[in-house]
């Protein structure tokens, strides 16, 4: 939007919303919304507490591990599906199914199988992220220009070379796109896992704050969480744009 010929930056309206929040909070309209200024003051206070740091560490660990497994398993699976028709036909229905299935329903199963701990949360995170990563890696491989592969073969590339020098690179824009969406889903997965298991990480923190009616604390943690999630998603979007130039050229 332009005001007096000056282009307002994209996210600047969040300041307006913040102001609105402050006004509603100051007016004391509802107990559940304390003024933003108070929340931000609490935020700095909370960040220093061991409870918060522990939650952040546990969440980052579960998230990192979950995404790691999703990528390490998902990308090769996708590439193999793109290359082998048999594998593709066997696996694709399941990948498509899990992509749209409400995986939240599986969390209770994971809880009884793997216990109320980190393991279940990591698996939840992986389950949320992996399907789109597989699907995109597969799509990336399937659209590789046929003549690129013929070129590699005519210059005598080994299958190993072809895999790492052609397939991975040619499918990179799609793979990164999949990883970006996968990571966003993983953030949601890690939080959903923690909420349902609720004795680890932010799940435990939320329980603590809400049972003690610490509203400002609650919102402060939410802001940190949302900001982190948004930053992660923007970071991957940035990576994706860096390789988008050759995706468009094909």
């Amino acid at each position, binding site marked *: 939007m332009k005001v007096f010929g000056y282009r307002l930056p994209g996210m600047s309206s969040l300041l307006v919303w913040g102001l609105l929040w402050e006004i509603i909070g100051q007016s004391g309209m509802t107990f559940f919304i304390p003024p933003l200024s108070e929340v931000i003051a609490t935020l700095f206070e909370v960040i220093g507490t061991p409870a918060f740091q522990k939650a952040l560490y546990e969440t980052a660990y579960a998230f990192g591990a979950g995404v790691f497994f999703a990528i390490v398993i998902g990308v090769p699976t996708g590439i193999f599906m793109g290359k082998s028709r048999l594998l593709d036909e066997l696996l694709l229905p399941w990948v498509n199914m899990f992509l749209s299935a409400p995986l*939240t329903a599986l969390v209770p199963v994971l809880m009884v199988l793997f216990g109320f701990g980190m393991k279940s949360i990591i698996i939840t995170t992986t389950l949320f992220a992996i399907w789109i990563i597989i699907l995109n890696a597969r799509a990336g491989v399937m659209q590789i220009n046929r003549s690129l592969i013929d070129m590699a073969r005519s210059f005598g590339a080994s299958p190993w070379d072809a895999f790492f020098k052609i397939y991975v690179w040619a499918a990179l824009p799609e793979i990164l796109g999949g990883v970006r969406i996968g990571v966003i889903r993983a953030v949601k997965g890690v939080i959903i896992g923690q909420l349902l298991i609720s004795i680890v990480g932010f799940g435990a923190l939320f329980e603590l704050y809400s049972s003690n009616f610490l509203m400002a604390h609650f919102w402060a943690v939410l802001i940190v969480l949302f900001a982190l999630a*948004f930053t992660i998603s923007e970071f991957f979007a940035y990576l994706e744009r860096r390789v988008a130039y050759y995706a468009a050229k094909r």
Partner: protein
Amino acid sequence: MSNRSTYLKLLSAVIVFGAWEIAGRIPVSYAFPTFLESMSALARMTFDGTLFAAYGETLKPLVIGVAISAILGIVLGLWIGLSSVFDWMFSPIFIVMQAAPLAALIPILVMAYGIGLTSKVFVVCIMAMPVIVLNTSSAVRNTPESIKEMGRSFLASDRAVILKIILPSASPIIFSGLRLGVSAGFIGAILSELKITPTGVGDIITFSRSIADYPSMYAAIFSIILLAVVFLNLLEKLENTLFEGNNRGYASD
């Protein structure tokens, strides 16, 4: 050709369900019933009506929540797509919502609205709405410039441009936004039953877990995933038949 793909689908189902059966027989865990045990529990719950009563409960917040999100989301998305002021004001909220783990809002919703239907509808709404709004607004914004110009050059009023050009042209993407919204709504509905109060299918899952009746628990989870997948697939089929050819017919193809 289609025979081969049907056989392979069947084969892959046999492999997966067979693996489930074998893993259940070993058993890999005391809490891992076999495929057949789970299916017979599913059949039992279907025939004694437990499952239908449960779904009546579970689908209520889902249907209400998705309906609210659809109406509000499309109107908002249309507005955001058409007006740069609205775009500036509201887009960031939905962009952040799209990336954020909104499930974290559940504890506060419960405090504010209690553990009843209202909270559950709210959970479904916050899950389903962002994708509906963002799809609608980007579809409206990306209406091909040339057909809008065509409308203006043939003297269409603003109203006619919106109703006869922008909306029909945006409708495939709006529809797929709705489908994704329903998909997110399912997550919201299940999450709220597992987290807020166990009712409906969430009740079957929680209760049978507490009495270690694992076949029933697995059956309930199996049924809700199946229901969601089948319903979403039907929506996708409908989408493909409704908008067949809608995205083709321009000079570039």
